[in-house]
């Protein structure tokens, strides 16, 4: 018996931008990593080929907690991407990670209207079409 073919992701599939290869590779194992500048000892997000603090290129990926708090949130009722309309309404949030950087994502596994500013969240994963996984967040256990 063969594995059922998974449904294709309804999402825009993120391109692997320059410098972000390590981020996406880690998602294949559902590991959440952040890029750090070795000279500034500071996280760099989004991932880059140079540090925006010092212009240096001594960057490395380190495991991240995948935990944070909701900084701002909007609930989408009518997505532009027609393929995502079956998911609506859903919450789009800016999440402040414990490491001190902010990322955009969705907060799932709860009613979208229950996602409020200050909510503690933790990373969860959704498959992309090429074996990578997209980091999402859900209310922290």
């Amino acid at each position: 018996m063969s594995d059922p073919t998974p449904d294709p992701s309804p999402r825009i599939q993120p391109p692997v931008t320059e410098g972000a290869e390590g981020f996406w590779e880690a998602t294949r194992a559902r590991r959440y990593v952040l890029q750090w500048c070795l000279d500034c000892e500071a996280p760099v997000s989004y991932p880059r080929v140079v540090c925006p603090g010092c212009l240096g290129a001594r960057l490395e990926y380190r495991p991240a907690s995948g935990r944070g708090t909701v900084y701002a949130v909007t609930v989408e009722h009518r997505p532009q991407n027609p393929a995502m309309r079956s998911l609506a309404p859903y919450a789009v949030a800016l999440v402040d990670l414990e490491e001190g950087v902010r990322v955009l994502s969705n907060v799932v596994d709860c009613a979208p209207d229950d996602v409020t500013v200050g909510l503690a969240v933790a990373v969860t994963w959704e498959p992309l079409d090429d074996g990578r996984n997209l980091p999402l967040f859900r209310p922290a256990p």
Partner: protein
Amino acid sequence: MSGQGDRSLRGAAAIVGVADAASPTGVLDLWGRALEAEMVRQALDDAGLTLADVDGVCHTTSSMAFAEYLGIHPSYTDSTMTGGSSFEVHAEHAAAAIAAGLCEVVVCVYAATPRGDRNRPTAANFRGGAGADQMMAWEAPYGMRMPMGPYALAASRHMATYGTTSEQLAQIAVSTRQWAAMNPSARYRDPLTIDDVLASPLETSPLHKLDCCLVTDGAGAFVMTSADRARDLAQPPVYLLGASTCHDHLMISQMPDLTVTPGARSGPAAFRMAGVKPDDVDVLEAYDSFTITALLHLEDLGFCEKGEGGPFVMDGKLGPGGALPTNTNGGGLSYTHPGMYGMFLIVEAVRQLRGTCGERQVPGAEVAVAHGSGMVLSCMATLVLGTEATR
């Protein structure tokens, strides 16, 4: 009289650092942003300056994407693209900007690697250029509606931080509609109530449909000349008294504080140049892509304290007869919004200062502000305009 001679830039600015890179093989190891960063670093080292000193950027593809990538929050920006002469044009503009006090340290950079790119399949990513690729990677997968999603996030944060309410945002749409009623060209002229706004569909919470600007056709133009020539022409001159442009980010996830736009820098700088205070402004034309956009402008330009925008608008002071006539043509919310509304801010400000706005004319208008907002609260440009009396 032309601008030459009496407005010479001679001695006003100097090039203090340089760098270049080339190889006998015709191929460089670095490319793209890494190569740009290396050139910037070397030129700054050459000058004895650091990235933190830079407050002006020039880039032929996108000065905004370039600045965001290197974490620069400039108060001078130039994406002029004239082909091979672009950098001479950048230098000319930068000298004028420095002479005018818009900024102090401008960096201009260029990198292209057509030979190396032949063996570099991802090179197209970089040439994609204007930040679109980063947005596709880090924001687009999450299904945020554009452009309203980022503004909804800003409204969410403002509400959570300052207790701003949907009723207060709605009041901005209501006051703006009162102006539109006096503009025969406005898309919507019927009276609007706070309840009407709150009853309109909540498509991208916390913003309702009537918190959002229109989608209409529209067009405009303006002509500038020297003050000397202006006096001999057909219309009373409207003088540029102050100007400033600042940006912090291109994507909303890179905006440092969603309740404070770069207008908090461009506004005070433009007022300083003009020698006027917010209290001196007779008419405010402030880009109202969404009600929250207008509210943030009121705070950042200094018409009220940060966080006070909600209570500030509730007495209807933005509307006809109010203390701060704002978006007197009916704005992007009720007059027109073809996509890039900034042109209409200037046209309406000029007409108000000429005194030709008919029923909606603000009596005795001598100082007007046209405050433009680009992308997602990303790039703010403030113009202070005045009449002969306030020049």
